[in-house]
């Protein structure tokens, strides 16, 4: 596995987009827990048109080389924008419904390419949803 395959060192490996302060809050939590917030780019959708959101994600992909986009809601504007980007560039991976467990698994998994780490992280995120009590 060469460096190109596992991402550019010191550059963010994924973009996190969500409603309100969701992305910033989630990435802040990653930073507080493990200090790896700099591996993620935060984008807020507030006040943005779908075109603005898509443009902002594309800009960050071009700037960082990130190949992974995490979004909050499957029905959200960010998810729709990201799906347009994936259509144009199938090498980019979108994970919708991101949670903290997903991001933590992702930032620690540097032994595989980010797109592969994203798929594994999504499974971890799903498994982290538990219900306790009757």
């Amino acid at each position, binding site marked *: 596995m060469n460096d190109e395959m596992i991402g550019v060192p010191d550059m963010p490996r994924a973009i996190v987009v969500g409603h309100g302060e969701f992305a910033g809050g989630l990435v802040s939590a990653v930073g507080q827990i493990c200090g790896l917030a700099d591996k993620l780019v935060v984008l807020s959708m507030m*006040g943005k*048109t779908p075109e603005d959101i898509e443009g902002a994600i594309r800009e960050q992909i071009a700037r960082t080389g990130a190949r992974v986009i995490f979004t909050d809601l499957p029905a*959200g504007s960010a998810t*729709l924008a990201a799906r*347009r980007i994936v259509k144009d560039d199938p090498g980019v991976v979108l994970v919708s419904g991101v949670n903290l467990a997903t991001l933590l698994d992702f930032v620690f998994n540097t032994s595989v390419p980010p797109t592969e780490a994203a798929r594994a992280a999504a499974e971890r995120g799903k498994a982290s949803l538990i219900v306790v009590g009757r």
Partner: protein
Amino acid sequence: MAIQLYRIDDRLIHGQVVVGWGQPLNVRFLVLVDDLVASSDWEKELYRMAIPPEMEIIFADVGSAIRDHARYADDPRPGLLVTGDIASMYRLVKGVKAIGSVNLGGIHHRAGRAEKLRYIFLTQGEEQQLRELESAGVEVTAQDVPSARAVPLPEVLDGESR
């Protein structure tokens, strides 16, 4: 139950529509009226995948929405109809003549538009179309989410609430 909300929102399907309004109104079918989306299989699939399984999505261009509106109105399920711009809703209302209210949910900044509310930006032509709708007896209010106050059109156009 018919259509519970006629909304203009340039994001078409997104969280506020599907969850913010969809859940409290118990929306079971959503009519997306947009000429461009209705003509593209890929666009339709994009929006279809954003809809929860309990909700049906119907795609229509403005012409077929006018033609099929009586069917939407007779549907026993609660529905929501959304257009991506004022011009499409204007054509729909003029063609149907049975729409009593229109919700301005999100019309964002573009060249030539002036800010009226945080989420409403309008050109002079769009303002005029909204005024015409009100003159024709259609209640036009701006309200992004159900918990917000419905801002009457004159107040929206004043821009004092922004």
